[in-house]
């Protein structure tokens, strides 16, 4: 049995990440879960947050938005609205996006539940980006 995991992160726009890794920690809906090779088949919701990949002894950080993960033995597939490698995170842009979303949420007004939810997700994703970026240092 191979002792690596094939990690795939797929968004509607493209495949963000597809590599063999040693371990991945993903932000599940019931808390973070660390996935090692030969994990029991699992289907879980993913919260917006930070995803840590261990590969050849080094750690990589990615930010993911809300989505789903499918884990089968040696394959981890993550289906998400948005994902970004921490190396590509533009900190200023993320800060700004977060501030903007927070402000919109603050103002409230005639916002529908869905819009509020989308804004919340945007805030969480921005926060995840910042966190991933900072963990990297």
């Amino acid at each position, binding site marked *: 049995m191979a002792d690596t995991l094939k990690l795939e992160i*797929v968004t*509607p726009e493209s*495949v963000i990440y597809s590599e063999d890794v040693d371990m991945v920690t993903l932000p*599940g809906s019931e808390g973070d879960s660390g996935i090692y090779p030969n994990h*029991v088949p*699992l*289907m879980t919701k993913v919260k917006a947050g930070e995803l840590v990949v261990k590969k050849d002894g080094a750690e990589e950080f990615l930010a993911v938005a809300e989505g*789903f993960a499918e884990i089968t033995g040696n394959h981890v*597939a993550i289906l998400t*609205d948005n994902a970004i490698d921490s190396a590509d995170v533009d900190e200023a842009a993320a800060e700004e996006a977060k501030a903007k979303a927070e402000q919109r949420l603050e103002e409230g007004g005639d916002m529908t539940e869905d819009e509020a939810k989308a804004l919340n997700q945007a805030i969480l994703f921005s926060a995840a980006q910042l966190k991933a970026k900072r963990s990297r240092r």
Partner: protein
Amino acid sequence: MPSTRDIRRRITSVKKTAQITNAMEKVAQAKMARAQQAAIGGRPYAELMNRMLGEVVTHAGDFEHSLMETRGGERRALILVTTDKGMCGAVNTNLLRLVSDEFIKDDTRVISAGRKGAQHATRAGWDLAAEFSYADRPTFTEARVITKVAVDLFESGEVDHVDIAFSNFVNTILQKPEVQTLLPITEIKGVSAGVEGEEMSAELPGGTTEFLFEPSASGVLGELLPHYLNFQVHQILLEAKASEFSSKMVAMKNATDNANNLIKDLTLTFNKMRQAAITNELLEITTAQMALGN
């Protein structure tokens, strides 16, 4: 009989038109490449989504979801995906003809994405429930808003079916108007990401492995279904855009070719007339000379 000057003026005007259509062709070509790229980019996601949905459905047991509910009624809503702008060949015409011939009844509620569809709906007196526009590169958010309206109509019981009409992108010269059922999700079918017109394998993987679900199978399915709908609408928007631009490109290419042919014809007429005028003049001169000469 137009004078040579009239013809020369017409040639200049046709030349300018050809320049414009040529430029529009080039723009459409660039945009088409991008739109096709986007449609292809959505494919891995569609595949993964189908697989996950298949697995959840096989393991969720007798799970009922409001979006899967089949009701007996015949009230329908139609999401009509057209373009915002004209000058794109026959995509809108073909789609609207198909839709008005076969799908629109008196009580059909129309949700229009794209201005052309909305205009037609108003003119034809259809029951327009909502109108949206979408960008050249449709975003997920735009798809979500459209889906939301449709889901609301369905869940509130105002309609029993939701269909979506769009022009499917087969290839650059062929776009096929198509109507797909969106709601209820009675059977999970592949999202046709068909850039080359091929369908995704609609076969669901068998339940060979036992899955754990977090938090629960129904919980995951409850989240996945709306997401699936959004994604399907998004993919359809991408396809509609690819269709629009390829059709526009072909239409503009034809226009440019026609203009060039016209220029050729006009130039020929112009030269003939000029030649005739010269011959005429020469004749006059010789006649005058002969009259004087002897």
